[in-house]
């Protein structure tokens, strides 16, 4: 069962996700939109039918309140697909808990708005039936058994899907989910091997047998489960971490699983915080050790899911990739003005979407730019925030090319290297971009076709200028009356923020410059103290002075280090984010363009309708048919564009929220880094002074 995406469509509350994870083979598609449908088709297994069912839903989902959709697909799915059976199975565990839980208000609270209608009915069923299952705790194992079957069936599905789909499509989400499933499967295997084997085959094909009954009830429960995601999560969490060891060894895993584990463990914690149920006990029993380490991470994101947006945000915070990219060894290739810098791009990952765990390629600067061009060509109209690469610097590069070994060009190279590294890290941090074949190619492929267009004299910059100009023009012409309060505020926010960051950047620059100045002055002072010491008659004083000169020399080094620390932790960070905010605005512009298309179509439709009315009035039946055709055509277009707009709005919103989260985390990380460096230099200072004090006291 391809559990559905971690990042499901915006409005989905956290709680739904877990559920999605379960039924998702089918339902998952719905959430990721178009790409998903492709994914589905790739997997030939049982899931086939359910997917079809969902192919349509995706679009609806985006336009309608999502909650409805969720509930619907599930219902549909339940019966036809074995996949659903599995899902059911999965839920059986939760049910036990749920039985308890259902009565508790917490459970209902989180998502009441979204799920109310659809859920209500099923819930009632659940309440009745669940107890039955739940009545005997031991039964719960039985319940798992069916699920095992499902799972067992799944693995092939999951793996095949995972491998093919992952590569083919950007639905990394699915891959993940598959993994989960796999893991769960495996775990299940471990746990239940013997009993399951017997049961496995039976229940699935024939849903009528004993277990199936459970299954059915459970199916109904599903929606209910949404309401009470915690249980689900805990359940998963319990299983997932356990699966880890086994999964890692197995060849089946799809690569993203380690990340998955994180996600789950986080989920676990979150839930356990919110609802201290007996599930927790279970969890603890099963694998306390695994879930524990993840606790601190997860706790940051644990907030009661009261608002859809917040939930979305939370879900965003859960993606962490086991993917380490470093850009190292800048090296000048060639001579003269044709010289260029090549960088070593090393990747370390346990994601199985890559061919090996570690690999290294050499890339030149224009390759990085080329990657950006490709990505923005493909994805910017979807509303993704595509991290921009560092800008070309003719001045800096010319210096390097002319190639004296002077410190400023070394600094330039180091600065660019670090910027490229951050750029790549941001790209792979984006869940959708990571799945892009070009990204993988960039990281993995030995030889890359030379990126063209970027090497024309600062071509990127020029293009950007052009784009900016056209954007400005369209901005002036398009007067969008913003319906969505969120976007209205966010656009304002982003602009304000950009202003503020620019200001901050200026401040930090001056800070860095002052630091450098300080380090220079300290060096000069050290020198003059040394001279003073050398011409001093009093030996003790002379000695102390030359010691002092040494201390000052070291302090100078500290200042210098701190200056570059300031620079790399803050100045570059701010510069990055100023550029990133530009990209965010680009997304808003894309959305506006989509809106414009929609409005244009709307206007056109209006015109056509008027024309039809005129024709009717004029009584010209011969042209009437054509007019009607046109109207239907334009109606279709309007719906299409409206959907596009809604889709892009959803994507942009999701991405911006992801971006904000990422930003806060990034800044936090940098601050910790900065503090560490501050602390370190302060400790060095203490050492220096402590060493000097006796010298001073020794002066007779």
């Amino acid at each position, binding site marked *: 069962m391809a559990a559905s995406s971690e990042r499901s469509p915006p409005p989905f509350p956290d709680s739904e996700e877990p559920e999605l994870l379960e039924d998702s083979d089918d339902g998952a598609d719905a959430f990721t939109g178009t790409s998903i449908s492709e994914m589905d088709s790739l997997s030939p297994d049982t899931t086939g039918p359910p997917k079809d069912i969902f192919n349509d839903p995706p679009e609806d989902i985006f336009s309608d309140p999502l909650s409805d959709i969720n509930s619907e697909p599930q219902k549909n799915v339940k019966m036809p697909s074995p996949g659903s059976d599995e899902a059911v199975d999965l839920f059986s565990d939760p049910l036990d808990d749920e039985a308890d839980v259902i009565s508790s208000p917490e459970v209902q609270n989180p998502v009441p708005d979204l799920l109310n209608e659809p859920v209500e009915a099923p819930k009632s069923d659940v309440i009745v039936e669940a107890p039955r299952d739940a009545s005997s705790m031991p039964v719960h194992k039985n319940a798992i058994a069916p699920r095992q079957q499902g799972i067992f069936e799944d693995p092939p599905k999951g793996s095949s899907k995972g491998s093919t789909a992952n590569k083919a499509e950007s639905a990394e989400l699915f891959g993940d989910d598959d993994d989960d499933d796999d893991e769960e499967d495996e775990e299940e295997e471990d746990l239940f091997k013997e009993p399951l084997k017997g049961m496995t085959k039976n229940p699935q094909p024939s849903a009528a047998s004993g277990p199936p009954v459970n299954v059915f009830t459970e199916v109904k429960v599903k929606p209910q489960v949404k309401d009470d995601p915690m249980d689900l999560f805990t359940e998963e969490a319990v299983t997932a971490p356990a699966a880890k060891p086994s999964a890692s060894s197995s060849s089946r895993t799809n690569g993203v699983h380690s990340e998955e584990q994180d996600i789950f463990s986080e989920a676990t914690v979150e839930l356990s915080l919110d609802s201290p149920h007996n599930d927790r006990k279970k969890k603890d029993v099963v694998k306390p050790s695994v879930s524990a380490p993840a606790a601190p991470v997860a706790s940051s994101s644990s907030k009661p899911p009261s608002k859809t947006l917040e939930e979305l945000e939370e879900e965003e915070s859960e993606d962490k990739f086991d993917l380490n990219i470093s850009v190292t060894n800048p090296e000048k290739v060639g001579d003269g003005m044709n010289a260029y810098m090549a960088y070593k791009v090393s990747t370390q990952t346990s994601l199985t979407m890559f061919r090996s765990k570690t690999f290294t390629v050499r890339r030149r600067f224009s390759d990085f730019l080329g990657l950006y061009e490709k990505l923005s060509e493909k994805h910017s109209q979807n509303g993704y925030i595509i991290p921009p690469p560092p800008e070309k610097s003719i001045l800096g590069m010319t210096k390097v090319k002319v190639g004296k070994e002077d410190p400023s060009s070394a600094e330039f190279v180091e600065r660019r290297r670090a910027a490229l590294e951050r750029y790549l890290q941001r790209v792979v941090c984006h869940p959708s971009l990571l799945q892009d074949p070009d990204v993988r190619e960039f990281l993995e492929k030995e030889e890359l076709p030379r990126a063209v267009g970027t090497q024309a004299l600062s071509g990127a910059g020029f293009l950007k200028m052009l784009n900016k100009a056209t954007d400005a023009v369209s901005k002036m012409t398009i007067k969008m009356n913003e319906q969505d309060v969120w976007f209205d505020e966010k656009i304002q926010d982003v602009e304000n923020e950009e202003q503020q960051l620019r200001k901050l950047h200026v401040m930090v620059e001056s800070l860095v410059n002052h630091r450098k100045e300080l380090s220079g002055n300290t060096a000069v002072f050290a020198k003059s103290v040394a001279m003073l010491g050398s011409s001093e008659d009093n030996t003790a004083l002379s000695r102390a002075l030359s010691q002092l000169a040494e201390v000052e020399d070291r302090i100078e080094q500290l200042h210098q280090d701190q200056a570059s620390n300031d620079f790399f932790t803050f100045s570059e960070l701010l510069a990055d984010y100023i550029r990133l905010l530009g990209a965010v605005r680009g997304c808003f512009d894309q959305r506006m363009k989509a809106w414009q298309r929609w409005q244009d179509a709307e206007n056109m439709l209006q015109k056509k309708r008027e024309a039809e009315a005129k024709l009717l009035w004029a009584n010209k039946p011969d042209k009437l048919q054509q007019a009607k055709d046109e109207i239907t055509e334009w109606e279709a277009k309007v719906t299409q564009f409206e959907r596009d707009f809604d889709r892009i709005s959803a994507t942009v919103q999701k991405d911006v929220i992801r971006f904000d989260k990422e930003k806060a985390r990034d800044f936090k990380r940098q601050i910790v880094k900065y503090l560490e460096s501050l602390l370190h230099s302060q400790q060095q200072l*203490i050492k220096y002074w402590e060493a000097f004090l006796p010298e001073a006291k020794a002066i007779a």
Partner: protein
Amino acid sequence: MEGSSAEAELSVSASSIRITDLTQDGDILTFAIASQKLNSSVGVCVFRAYEDFDWLQQSLFSQENVPGIQGIIFPPLPPKALPSQSNMQAKTLKQLGFLALGKDWQGYCKALEFYLQQVATHPTLCKCKALDSFLINSESPGKQRGRKGILNRLSQAVEEMRKESHKDVDNFFQNERNKNTNIAALSKVATEKLLDVVMTEQKLALACGHFSTSLHLCVNQDDAAAVAFSKVCLKLSDIIEAVKRNFEKVATNNLTTLGLGLDLESRNQEAEKEMLFRRTCKLIELETVKKSTEKAKANKREVMEAFQKAVEKEFNLISSVGKQEIERFNNSRVNVLKNFLIDWCEQQLNAAKEYAELYSQHLEACRNMYSE
């Protein structure tokens, strides 16, 4: 002053002299000088303007009943501060160096205080009546003598160029002169450099302040992510504020200890140089007298020889006083420098420890933010 009563002992204890307060009225700075009577706990407080200090210095220069007074190294009086010309900050800074820095002329007061203590502890100068009246009389001493000193210095400066390089007859003094020229120049440079460092530190503190303030502008409470980001910004603002205070502290420490010390050192060296120069002038005078005595005709010879003897005697007196003074001066100089260095080192060490502690607290808090 120049009366025979100049031999009176100083009636206050030298180490108790403090400049306790400062009032500023336009261009005129008035210093409150407190001291304690010897053998009693009675405190004396007088108010003096810079002109009074200058008068004191001139009185010290012009004592007539002190043999070999020209061999004395007079404690250096800091140059006059002109507070109203704050728009000419750069100029004051150039003129006064460290003394112009620091809040409310603290550095300047410290330097004046140090000057008074140096005078009061000087074995010869402390007997001067002028000092006693400066420290005790509630009325301000006369100002009429101010001019003379300035003229003195000017003429000295002109002659200096000519006579500086005159070869000495005494190796000790020749060495001392070489060393003095050397160290005076070097300590002056070192003082200037340290001043640069302190200025940069203050600039940094200022920049940190701006940075920290503008971080507050990034606060936005719109949604959860914004709140999280705002928290981060505020935290960073706190941290930068701490960094700022750290810089201020370090700058102040530099200023009040090593800065003042180096400044004093360089002015002391200047004072020594002046003494050596006065001696050199005497030497030159003696040599000219000797020459003219040889050339003199018989009838004038006797007068000339008597004159030469007088000059020679004076020169020898100056030399012997100068030798003692140099020894005393070197000892006290090293001592003073040592105290400043120790003070400085301790203060910096404390500051470093204090801020290391603060930073580690911040770090702890930041790390906890992850798990909030």
